[in-house]
C-alpha cells in the first residue's frame, strides 16, 4: 500500500495573484504530495467537481481579493451537498484575524495568512 496524499490548490473568485498559490503548489510537491492546480477564476462548483474527480484529501484555497467570506464557506457547503465533506478545506491569503474564526466556524479547517512558513502547512496536513 503506497498511499499518496493528494491536494487541490485552487483559486476561487477573480483574483489574479497566484504567487502564493504557485509557491504552495511547488513546495507541497517538494514535500512529496501530489498537487493538482486549477489555475485562476474558478467557481465554487468547478472547485468541488475537481476535488471529487481527483479524489483529493485536501483543498487549499488561495484568495487575496477579500471575497473569502463569501466563497470559502460556499465551497465547504457544496462539498457537503456532494457527500464529500471528508475532504478537508484550508485557506490562505489576505485574511484579517476577525474573519478567521468566521471561516473556521463555517467549516474551513485552517487559515494561513501571509508569512506562514510552509512547514506549518505541511505539519497541518500531516496531523490530519
Amino acid at each position, binding site marked *: 500500500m503506497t498511499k499518496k496524499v493528494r491536494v487541490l490548490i485552487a483559486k476561487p473568485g*477573480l483574483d*489574479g495573484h*497566484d504567487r502564493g498559490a*504557485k509557491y504552495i*503548489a511547488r513546495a507541497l510537491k517538494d514535500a512529496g504530495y501530489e498537487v493538482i492546480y486549477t489555475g485562476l477564476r474558478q467557481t465554487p462548483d468547478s472547485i468541488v467537481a475537481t476535488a471529487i474527480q481527483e479524489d483529493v484529501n485536501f483543498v487549499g484555497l488561495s484568495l487575496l481579493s477579500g*471575497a473569502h467570506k463569501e466563497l470559502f464557506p460556499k465551497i465547504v457547503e457544496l462539498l457537503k451537498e456532494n457527500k464529500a465533506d471528508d475532504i478537508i478545506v484550508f485557506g490562505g491569503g489576505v485574511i484579517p484575524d476577525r474573519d478567521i474564526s468566521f471561516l473556521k466556524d463555517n467549516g474551513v479547517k485552517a487559515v494561513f495568512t501571509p508569512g506562514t512558513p510552509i512547514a506549518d502547512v505541511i505539519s497541518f496536513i500531516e496531523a490530519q
Partner: protein
Amino acid sequence: MPDNRDLIKQKKTWESTTVKKVTDRFPERNENFTTGSWLPLNRLGIPNYEDKTYMDKSGFPGEYPYTRGVQPTMYRGRLWTMRQYAGFGTAEESNERYKYLLNQGQTGLSVAFDLPTQIGYDSSDQMSIGEVGKVGVAIDSLKDMEILFGGIPLDKVSTSMTINAPASVLLAFYIAVAEKQGVTKNQLTGTIQNDILKEYIARGTYIFPPTPSLRLITNIFDYCSKEVPKWNTISISGYHIREAGSTAAQEVAFTIADGIEYVKAALDTGMDVDVFAKRLSFFFNSHNDLLEEIAKFRAARRIWAKIMKERFKAKSPNSMKLRFHTQTGGSTLTAQQPDNNIVRVTIQTLAAIFGGTQSLHTNSRDEALGLPTEKSVQVALRTQQIVAHESGVANTIDPFAGSYIVEELTDKIEQEVMEYITKIDDIGGMVKAIEKGFIQKQIQDSAYKYQKEIERAERVIVGVNKFTAKEEQPNDILEVNPKLREVQIQRINEVKENRSNESVQKKLIALKKAASTTDNNLMPLILDAVREYATLGEICNVLRKEFGEYKESIVL
C-alpha cells in the same frame, strides 16, 4: 592628474540651454537651495576628475540617455506627483475618499477598480459573486462613473486608472463624464494602465487573447493621439511582475520587452513612432534594497532611451524619455507588526525619489491585512510629504550618481536586462515568450528562491522570521459592505429602465460589426455605446464573442 575641465564646460552648456529653456517658463521652487544647515546645495553634482564614460553613460538630466533623469531640473522644479491608489465599494464611497485625499494635499487621483470591472463583468454577472467592490470601486455603467467623479473638475485633476483589458471602455466612460461636465477631450490629463501583456504574465485580469488585445491598445494609441492628446495611453508596468516575485533586473527586462512589443504593434499599424511614443509611460515597483532599486530606475531610463533611439529610430527626445510612476512594494509588507511597514515604505520612497520617479504611491501599513483605513492612508501620504519637504533629497538631482557601487549596479542591471531582451527577441518576441511560459517560469523560479530563503531564515524579514513578537492585530480594518452586489444590481436595473434599449442595441451591433474586421478603430464605437448607457459587461461580452477569451499558460 587629469581634470574635469571639459565636463565643467559641458555642464555650463547644459545650464544655458536645456535647463534655461525650462526655468524660463517654470522657475525652480527656490531661488537658492541649501542643506538643512544652510550649506549651499548644487543643482547637480558631477565628477571632479576626468571621466571619459560620463557623457555616454550618464549625460545630464533632461538629455540623452536620461540616466540622471528625464527633466532638466527634476524635483527642484516641481515635486513628484503624490498619487495614492484608492477606490473601494460604491462610487459614492470612493468619491468621498478622493475628495478627502485631494483635501489632504494629494495632487492626482488614482482609481482602483474592483475585479469584475477589471475583467469586464457587470456586478450582476455570476462570476462577480463575492468580488463586487472588494479591491476597488465597482463600475458597471456611465452612471457609476458620473457619481465617482461628482464634484471633481476633470479639467483640473489628472486621473490615473488601473484598468487593462477593458481600458477602452473605462476611458470612454471618463471622456463621457468629462463631456457632461463641459470639459473637452483635449483638456483631459491622466493615464490608463492598458498594459495587457503583464496581465498574462503576472496580474491575471486579462479577457481576450493577445492579438485582439493588442489591437484594442493600438486603437487607443491612435485615437488619443488625435482626440485626447495629453492622455498617457499606457502605463507599461513592471510593478506586478515584481510583485509576482521577479528580481529587480527581471522587472526592468520584462517591462521593457513589453514596451518593445507595444511599439512594434503600433508601428505595424503604420503609425509614426514619434506620434505615439511620447505618450508611453511606465510603472515600477520600489523594494527595500535601496541601492539596487536606485540603480534599477537609472538603468531602465538609459536602456529605454537607447532602444527608442537606436532600434526604433525615434527622433523626438520625448519618445526616448522613460517617464514612470512608482508604487512601494506591496509584497514587502508584513501582516506581523504592521507598524514596521511604515519604515519599509519610507526606505522604498527614498529609493523611488533617488531613482527619479515622476509620481509615487506609498502603501499603507495595514495592506497585508486588508483594505487600508483612512488613518493609515494618511500616514502613507505623510511619508512622501516628509521625504519631499524635510529630508532635503529633492533639492539636488540624482544624488547617487558617481557612487562607485550604484554606477556598478546600474551597469550590471543594464547588462542583465539586455541579455533577457536578446533572448526574448530570439524566441520571437514577448507574446511568444509568454505563450511558451518562458517569462512566467523565470519569475516563478525567482519567487521560489526568495521564499525558500525566507523559510530557511537566510533572508531576514523583521517580525516574520526574526525579532518576532506576540501581538494583537489592529481591529480597525476596513470592511466592504457585503450587500454591495445587490446595490449595484439595483442600479444596473435602474439604468436599463431609463435608457433607450433600442439605441443601445444599435450601438452594440455597430461595435460587433467593427470588431469582426481588423481595420476599424473601436474607440469611437465604444464611446457611442457608453453614451447610451450600455454597461461594461454588455460591451465586453460583445467583444468576447468576437475575440474569444484568453486561457492562461501555466508552467509550474
